[in-house]
């Protein structure tokens, strides 16, 4: 608001500011009831989302249950030092980034593809059936997905290995193989979440003005032309939005799934920051340590979101804000 004021001088600026303030006050007064109604929402965010952020200070303190947040002693960057001098920490960061990146690359396109395919289906009942079936796995918990994966891939009782044995081949240790681990993570993730991801695109596809298609048909555009010139530009913003949001969560490689699928043979490629924190926290209840990791992850996420947003704007997209 005061950005303009700062560039001007003396009385000018002051009167300018005053009139601006007055205008603002008038506006607030005119819409006072709306502002009042907005208040509970604002208070909610303030109390439950912004105030708790203060708690991040315990990342720089030795948190003690009795002394609480304020009276625990300051320890500076001790916890961060401990994190980054822990053996194997760089391996977990590398794995986190790689798994997240794979998820973004291989996880977003299937969503889009499924939505585009569904969008082209004209037979109502068929479209609905396919949508329901692909949407179903989203509601399964990872424990169940793992149980399914296990019953397919287990070395002895697994379906795939039973088949391999009957064909006279050697069984493969899928779940304990370092090379397959990330692939299995991403594949099961796609299987579970694609149906849900497509819903968002379908919604934005439905919002595209049908007159555009009609006009394109009049101009002699075929299906592919329509897809290229109308459909894809129509959902570009949603795609970018989801991409930026996902980039913000790059330090979360999906704790629940990884924790359930992880075993000691695949630590080399599968151990992530969150599973490491979980092991530490479970044993020692290290609040400060966990907060320090959370803070680190948050900062990285924030920087990336802002960066990605800038980038999106530079390339002509709209970004998130």
């Amino acid at each position, binding site marked *: 608001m005061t950005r303009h004021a700062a560039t001007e001088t003396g009385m000018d600026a002051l009167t300018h500011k005053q009139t601006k303030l007055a205008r603002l006050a008038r506006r607030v007064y005119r819409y006072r009831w709306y502002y009042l109604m907005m208040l509970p929402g604002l208070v909610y965010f303030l109390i439950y989302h912004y105030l708790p952020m203060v708690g991040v200070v315990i990342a720089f303190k030795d948190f003690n*249950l009795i002394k609480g947040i304020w009276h625990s002693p300051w320890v500076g960057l001790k916890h961060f030092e401990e994190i980054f001098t822990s*053996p194997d920490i760089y391996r977990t960061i590398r794995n986190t980034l790689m798994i997240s990146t794979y998820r973004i690359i291989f996880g977003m396109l299937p969503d889009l593809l499924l939505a585009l395919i569904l969008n082209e289906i004209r037979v109502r009942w068929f479209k609905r059936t396919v949508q329901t079936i692909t949407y179903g796995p989203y509601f399964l918990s990872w424990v169940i997905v793992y149980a399914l994966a296990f019953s397919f891939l287990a070395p002895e009782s697994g379906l795939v290995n039973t088949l391999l044995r009957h064909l006279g081949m050697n069984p493969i240790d899928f779940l304990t193989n370092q090379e397959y681990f990330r692939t299995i993570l991403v594949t099961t993730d796609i299987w579970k979440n694609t149906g849900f991801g497509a819903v968002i695109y379908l919604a934005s596809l439905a919002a595209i003005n049908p007159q555009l298609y009609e006009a394109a048909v009049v101009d002699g555009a075929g299906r592919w032309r329509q897809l290229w010139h109308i459909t894809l530009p129509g959902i570009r913003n949603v795609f970018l939005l989801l991409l930026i949001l996902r980039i913000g969560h790059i330090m979360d490689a999906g704790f629940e799934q990884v924790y359930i699928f992880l*075993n000691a043979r695949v*630590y080399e490629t599968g151990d992530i920051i969150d599973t490491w924190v979980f092991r530490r926290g479970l044993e020692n209840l290290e609040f400060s340590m966990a907060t320090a990791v959370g803070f680190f992850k948050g900062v990285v996420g924030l920087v990336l979101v802002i960066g990605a947003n800038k980038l999106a704007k530079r390339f002509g997209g709209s970004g998130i804000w």
Partner: protein
Amino acid sequence: MKVQRLAIWLLIFTLVLSGCSFITGEKPSENEKGGSGGKLELKWFTMVDQATTVLPDVQNDFVKKKIEEKFNVKLTIEFMPFGPDRDNQLNVKVASGDAPDMFLSTGIMSQTLALNGVLADLTPFVSPKTMPNYFKWVKEEELKRYAIQNQFVRAPIPFARNVYRSYYIRKDWLDKLGLQVPTNYDEMINVMRAFTNNDPDGNGKKDTYGMSASGNGKGLSIDLPQYLHNGLIGMFMIENGKFIDVQSDPRVENVIDETVQMIKEGILDPDWYLNEGEAHIDRAAQGKVGIVASHTRDLIWDANPQSLQNKSKAIDPKADWIPFNPFKDQPGIWTETLPETAFLFPKSVAENEPEKVKRSVQILDWLASEEGYLLTHYGVEGKHYTRSGNKITLKPDAIQKEIVEKGNFLDVYDFFTPAEPEVLGLEVIDPRMTERDRKIDETVKSYPKIPSIGTNVAPPKGLNLADFRAKMHEYHSKMLFDEKSGKNWPKYRQELMTKYKGQDVFQAYVEQVRATGTKVEDFK
């Protein structure tokens, strides 16, 4: 406009109201105190074995009724099974200043709480004078050892003395193949070969294995007989004055080599590494494997409808499991038990309302008495069991109907004592138990155990074993499956002890054991 204004007034009104009760949040509790007829209000946070346990209606809850009448209290018990969720809940309660008047926690967590200064000094509250019944279960010496850095802020709940550790084998398979119950490691491996190769279930397919275990995706399961074969017993042990962490001992080299051999021969269930929890027992129930190890007392009882014996029989009516101990040459099959769960009182309650702690202590002691024990484990005399002298005969039908089907609520109240009536000189007869069950119980109970290390140990502040154990599991797995040999173990062990701080932590354990008066050499 009118409607709008009305809505706003309503909004303001509710905000003010909720604000009021928020600000004066302290007051109503005092009023309630008067309201409940002078009864002392107690809040406990305990644990249950089963997540499905619930409390019944007040009129069916004969234990709550008894306690509230006898001690003139209003008792509210919150309960959860042990696990990370419960730890979190407890953390939140303690951190937010809403600590229960009495609560249970794991040994490790109680240590953290003690170091945080949250816990009350128990000296004025817990002694043979205030808790005569409790000390029938727990020795004073054990109580002392359980102290944290010489502070008496936690006490163990009475813990089970009996260890029901045993290997179990399919007797019908042995008979079919004309084999004897193995009496040593080599015979055991031979039997496992026969179970794998000679079609013990007679279905004409080679689809059985000698043994299964649950590696939980981590590595060497402690069930593998190779540990005992190399003289490694339990999890921690003291051998010739040396403290030994079983899973990282130098002898693990041999354990790995022998396990690799077993895997190569194909006599170990290939799913063992990824089996989680009790999955190996399921594999046994499916008739896939002939040997398992377990700590579960009624694993193969006829009396337990869910037992391995009964599940196996559903698939193969001839199935017959028996316990066996192939390691008679070893001093024990496992170690004796140590106290694990602690009962604790928050400092704030002990300072401000010591009466609450005193009353809780009285109730706990009553739970450890004969009356409390019988009521919380078996129910009401005459109704759920009959008594003549020291013989308690259960009435399973009444127990099923009035306790198990009412949320199995005795699970909530029996937390304080293990199901070991012999401590109180009682003998409990479950009419469902067969002669076979009783024999199995006797046999398994009789297997020798080596003494425990004498005290609970935990890493000192600033150190942890999480990274150490994770890397250890990784190396175990690498040697088992990739290198297929234990020859690199000395090198890996060296790295674990230095880079992953094993040496520092175990030396601290040695000092904690020393503090109890046991002579132990420095950790090497």
